[in-house]
């Protein structure tokens, strides 16, 4: 007898091929693809916001107005010299007239302004990243040196960017939640349909002494496995798309907006597990509820 059972192993109690299994696999794979892209996109958006914020927080601009006894260039040079000596400032550079003209050209046009129009000079400051100087300290140093200047610390811009980044993060989390809920709903529907289509099988199992838990576990494992497999396919597709964007999208506007790092591609890796977990819970809850109503 042992020879007859050499390669034998009990077959699964639920049929391997079930009606609608391919459709369910496709839907879960698409949802997994979208969830994975959301995760990667969320991380990239956060990275972009962090970069912009660092650039803004790490610098400041001072608008210098020359006094009657000074030329604008001399006033700017003196302001740069004063500011360079303030603790927390790495470098202060007075921008010459050509740079100042270039900056305002975008607002007043390319034609040169009359020489008697008082164009304020700018001083660009790079702040020490570890202990940046406070705007008040910069203003105090200018005042002490008798320089008429206004410090722009870019703080309001940075705050707006951070708000935008937070919004993007919550959007990604919201999207992931909606997709997870959709996956759960799809699995619950499929489990209900599967149970209805297999009523005979369920009755035979009950008659053979199966508990509701035993039967629910069969469906739970089946749907968890399908979701995990579909999750792998969806996540792999998303990783492929993101990798292509990372590799070939450099310099494009989308790549600048969403700077995907290679490490971001790891974000979808837990998704198959999450999908399996969602499927297991949804299937179990659904099947338990249906079986509880049976005699």
């Amino acid at each position, binding site marked *: *007898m042992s020879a*007859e*059972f050499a390669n*034998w*192993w*009990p*077959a*699964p*109690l639920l*049929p*391997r091929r079930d009606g609608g299994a391919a459709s369910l696999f496709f839907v879960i794979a698409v949802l997994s693809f979208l969830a994975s892209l959301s995760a990667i996109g969320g991380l990239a958006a956060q990275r972009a916001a962090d970069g912009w914020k660092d650039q803004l927080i790490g610098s400041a601009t001072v608008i210098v107005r020359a006094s009657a006894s000074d030329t604008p260039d001399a006033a700017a040079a003196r302001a740069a010299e004063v500011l360079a000596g303030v603790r927390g400032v790495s470098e202060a550079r007075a921008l010459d007239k050509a740079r100042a003209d270039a900056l305002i050209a975008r607002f007043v046009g390319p034609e040169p302004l009359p020489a008697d129009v008082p164009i304020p000079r700018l001083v660009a400051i790079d702040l020490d990243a570890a202990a940046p100087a406070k705007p008040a300290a910069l203003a105090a140093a200018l005042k002490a040196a008798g320089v008429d200047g206004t410090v722009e610390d870019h703080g309001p811009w940075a705050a707006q960017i951070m708000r935008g980044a937070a919004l993007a993060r919550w959007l990604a989390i919201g999207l992931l939640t909606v997709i997870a809920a959709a996956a759960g709903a799809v699995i619950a529907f499929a489990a209900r349909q599967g149970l209805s289509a297999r009523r*005979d*099988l369920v*009755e*035979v*199992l*009950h*008659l*053979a*002494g*199966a*508990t*509701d838990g*035993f039967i629910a576990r069969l469906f739970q494992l089946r749907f968890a496995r399908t979701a995990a497999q579909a999750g792998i396919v969806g996540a792999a597709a998303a990783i492929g798309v993101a990798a292509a964007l990372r590799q070939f999208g450099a310099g494009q506007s989308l790549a600048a907006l969403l700077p995907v790092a290679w490490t971001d591609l790891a974000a979808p890796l837990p998704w198959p597990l999450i999908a399996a977990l969602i499927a297991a819970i949804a299937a179990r809850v659904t099947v338990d509820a249906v079986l*509880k109503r049976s*005699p």
Partner: protein
Amino acid sequence: MSRNPEAESAADIYPGTLAPPVVRFEKVSMRYGAGPPVLHDVSFDLASGSFHFLTGASGSGKTTVLRLIYLGDRATGGRVELMGRDVATLGRRERPALRRRIGVVFQEFRLLSHLSVFDNAALGPRIAGRKPASYRADVVELLAWVGLRDRLHAMPDALSGGEKQRLAIARAVVNRPDILLADEPTGNVDPAIALRILRLLTELNRVGTTVLIASHDEDLVARAGKPVLHLSDGRLSRFDPAARESPQ
């Protein structure tokens, strides 16, 4: 608990038997939803080790009686007792254990088409959580008893009607149930096979299994010479304990 005056007791049918009946119906009524009653005040006892036929025309309530015994439905009136337990008081978690003591055979076999002959027959021990090595020999022996020793790895679709029914019997008795219910077990097989199936059921009864067969095959019932519960329009019209001898 008072005896039901309409029911023949185990002691009546099998004098000297003190054991409580394995199945007791007391004024059992049943209706599905808002439909008409399927059973009206049906009362009977089945003694342990007895063999009965449940007869009646199509729609008379035979299948409903079986469903109530194998816990496929709940009676809407009266009391059903199995192995001394009032099924109405059974918790959901207690039902599977009781169901394992009841084997059921259907006219349409209800085999699992994606499982082999062996896997179908081994369903009971597998669900009970036994390791394959612990039940393999028992199941093979059981399949040999029903004449399917050489079809172990065949799929149900490849079996004849008689083979399917014998497999269904093997599956129903693999857990050594106290009660075996069969709903028209010979309805889809030819007379020769029907006799063979009847012989198998009789052998099971000889080793102590209580057998209840729903059938409208009058020839088979007459040949068997077993007590008959006759249903007519949902009422138990005849409970004939006279013919008690098993067929030879």
